[in-house]
């Protein structure tokens, strides 16, 4: 294949090399080795010193400084996939970030500081996420808050962000965060197993008995599988197929054929990127051009997902056969108006977020809950009168959970006005009331979403806590 190496056997010289030459040659070699060894030792020592210095700088560098300099700009960082299979998530959070910070700045900023957004692309892979976060902390000044950190990378980046003493609002539902204490970690979304239970309730509500599972092989999607299997059994439904989709694969015809052969009433799925649209198209082709009903997770509530699936199977078919669980979010009222107004102010200005119906962002869980998280953090800083995280962090739970006599506010501007009057406040945003537990989790409650043929999200019903408990193993 490659040309053979040009290494030719050296012609053998005279085979009677003088012994004296050999001895001096060996001595020379030993001397050379000593020198080389010394040089090597020096090199190793220098390298070790540099590594130690670099590690020390990395440990000290970045993160939130005690207090930002007067008039400086504070940063909120969107740490999420902007490329790879889950590339749709980063832009959703960025829309929320840009909208929220724009609204905060219009209301006068935080203690005289303007707020801006920055990003760190994790590519949805732990191996890429850690260096991306490391780079963020090394380069970002006045980094006050991290948002995003999805299930793809949370396990690897949460400890790093926590070590840098930076507050984070994360979109991971991984159950490992249910009862592990990271002091700077906050979560406004439920654990994944609760979403699996919600999907099962949807299947029950719609009268489906035979269920097929098709989840991507990424960390974020696989966390749904075992709870879904348990909930399906508890609900008395039948699991007829369980296919794992390799997100690096380009077709899933065999998986689609196995699903069709199992004759399910519905398919529960999460396989973001091009996987789900491809799978659904292939299932439809193999099922005599008929789409099998689909129950998705809240990650499916995005204009990008709708657009890809509508193209794959047809908008009318997709709208008629798709449901997803989603957290209950406001659809009217002052909190909703403030939220949608802030997002609409940045419509068309956020890179990667110009696809599909923009109003889908109004119910996308990442957009809603991270908006609430950012407002909570901003109001906490104002209430504490400081950008020193040690001083404002405790205010997050106080303002989120409320205290007796607190005035309910639904936007940053409203909250700042109340704080200026010396009032205690409780922030309730479009994501609904917050109730942080000891682990800084506030799970929320579920609704059932579907799409119109135009791609707008339609709320088809709510799921009660009792229904969730009934299918919980």
């Amino acid at each position, binding site marked *: 294949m490659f040309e053979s190496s040009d290494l030719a056997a050296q012609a053998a010289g005279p085979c009677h090399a003088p012994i004296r030459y050999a001895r001096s040659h060996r001595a020379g070699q030993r001397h050379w080795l000593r020198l080389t060894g010394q040089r090597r030792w020096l090199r190793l020592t220098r390298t070790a010193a540099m590594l130690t210095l670099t590690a020390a700088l990395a440990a000290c560098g970045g993160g939130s400084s005690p207090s930002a300099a007067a008039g400086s700009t504070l940063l909120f960082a969107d740490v999420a996939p902007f490329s790879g299979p889950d590339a749709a998530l980063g832009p959703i959070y960025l829309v929320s970030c840009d909208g929220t910070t724009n609204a905060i700045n219009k209301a006068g900023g935080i203690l005289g500081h303007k707020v801006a957004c920055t990003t760190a692309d994790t590519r949805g892979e732990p191996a890429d996420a850690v260096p991306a976060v490391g780079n963020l902390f090394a380069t970002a000044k006045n980094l006050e808050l991290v948002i995003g950190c999805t299930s793809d990378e949370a396990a690897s980046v949460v400890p790093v962000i926590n070590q840098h003493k930076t507050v984070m609002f994360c979109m991971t539902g991984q159950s490992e965060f249910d009862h592990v204490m990271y002091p700077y970690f906050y979560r406004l979304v439920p654990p994944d197993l609760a979403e699996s239970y919600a999907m099962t309730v949807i299947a029950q509500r719609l009268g489906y008995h035979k269920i097929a599972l098709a989840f991507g092989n990424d960390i974020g999607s696989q966390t749904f599988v075992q709870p879904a299997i348990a909930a399906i059994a508890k609900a008395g439904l039948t699991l007829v197929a369980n296919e794992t989709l390799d997100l*690096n694969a380009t077709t899933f015809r065999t998986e689609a054929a196995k699903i069709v052969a199992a004759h399910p009433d519905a398919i529960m799925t999460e396989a973001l990127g091009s996987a789900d649209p491809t799978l659904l198209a292939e299932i439809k082709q193999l099922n005599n051009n008929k789409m099998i009903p689909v129950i998705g997770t809240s990650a499916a509530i995005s204009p990008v997902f709708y657009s890809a699936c509508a193209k794959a199977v047809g908008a009318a078919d997709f709208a008629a056969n798709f449901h997803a669980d989603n957290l209950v979010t406001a659809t009217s009222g002052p909190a909703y108006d403030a939220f949608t107004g802030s997002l609409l102010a940045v419509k068309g200005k956020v890179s990667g977020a110009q696809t599909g119906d923009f109003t889908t962002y109004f119910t996308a869980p990442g957009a809603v809950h991270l908006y609430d998280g950012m407002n909570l953090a901003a109001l906490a800083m104002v209430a504490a009168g400081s950008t020193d995280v040690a001083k404002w962090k405790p205010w997050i739970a106080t303002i989120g959970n409320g205290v007796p006599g607190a005035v309910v506010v639904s936007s940053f501007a409203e909250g700042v006005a109340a704080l200026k009057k010396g009032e205690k406040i409780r922030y309730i945003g479009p994501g609904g009331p917050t109730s942080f537990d000891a682990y800084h989790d506030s799970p929320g409650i579920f609704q059932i979403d579907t799409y119109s043929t135009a791609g707008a999200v339609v709320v088809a019903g709510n799921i009660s806590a009792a229904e969730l408990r009934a299918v919980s193993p």
Partner: protein
Amino acid sequence: MSLLLASVGFGLITSAVLAIAAVAFTLQFAVTDVLNLAFAAVMTAGAFIAYLVNQSGYPVWAGLVAAMAACSLLSVLLNYFVYAPFQRRGSAPITLVIVSLGMALIVEFGTAAIVGGISVSYSMSQGSTVGLGGLVFTTVQLVIMAVSVLVMGFVHVLLRYTRLGKAMRATAANRMLARSCGIRASRVIATTWALTGALCGLAGTVFAIDVGSFDPSSTDIFLILILAAVFLGGPGNAYGAMLGALVIGLATEVSAAYIQPDYKYVVAFVLLLAMLAVRPAGLLGART
């Protein structure tokens, strides 16, 4: 529909797409001596060029022609500005492999920077479903297989019956001797880049039509299948690439029917390794 029969059908579709890419790749390698790992990234760029044309209101088949032209030009420029200078300097083959890997990353991430990281689809219908004795295909899949057969026929005629094809074979066999016989090797090489680049654009568009939904990283794993098909059939042998594509395509899909589909690519590579252990030159390569 029996799962085995269905998976054979799926394998034929995969083989059809893979054959176009593998034949182009192996011709490029044979004539130019460059193991061009940027091939799959150029395929993706072609797919997105076709997408942009399609989004402008033209049918995807018009986009396919645009993709072929663009990828042909891109491949010629890649050689002219990147690979040829390294070859003139007498760089080792491994150096060229590393350079091509770097170009693959540049092209892939450059495409992602321009079009974004999200997945897209062509605006086209897959057509009706056709049953053929237990096999199920859509109209578009039948067209893809027909295109693949046409490309194989074209390559066969080119290599066997045209002066250019003979010159390509001569240059691939022994460049110095070909030069001595009056063949303008540099011109043959440039033409090869243009031709195989066009096939690369065709392969990329056809790949994207087949998978339905694609993004800038969609062909990462596909490159590995191309390499497997090329080396299974015998590197530098176009007919070997065709056979290798058929074997790899069928092996991946049929194995997925009986073991966990996650492992379908593993099965393909196990086959490749077994073949290389038994017959290192590949199925149609000359015995060493």
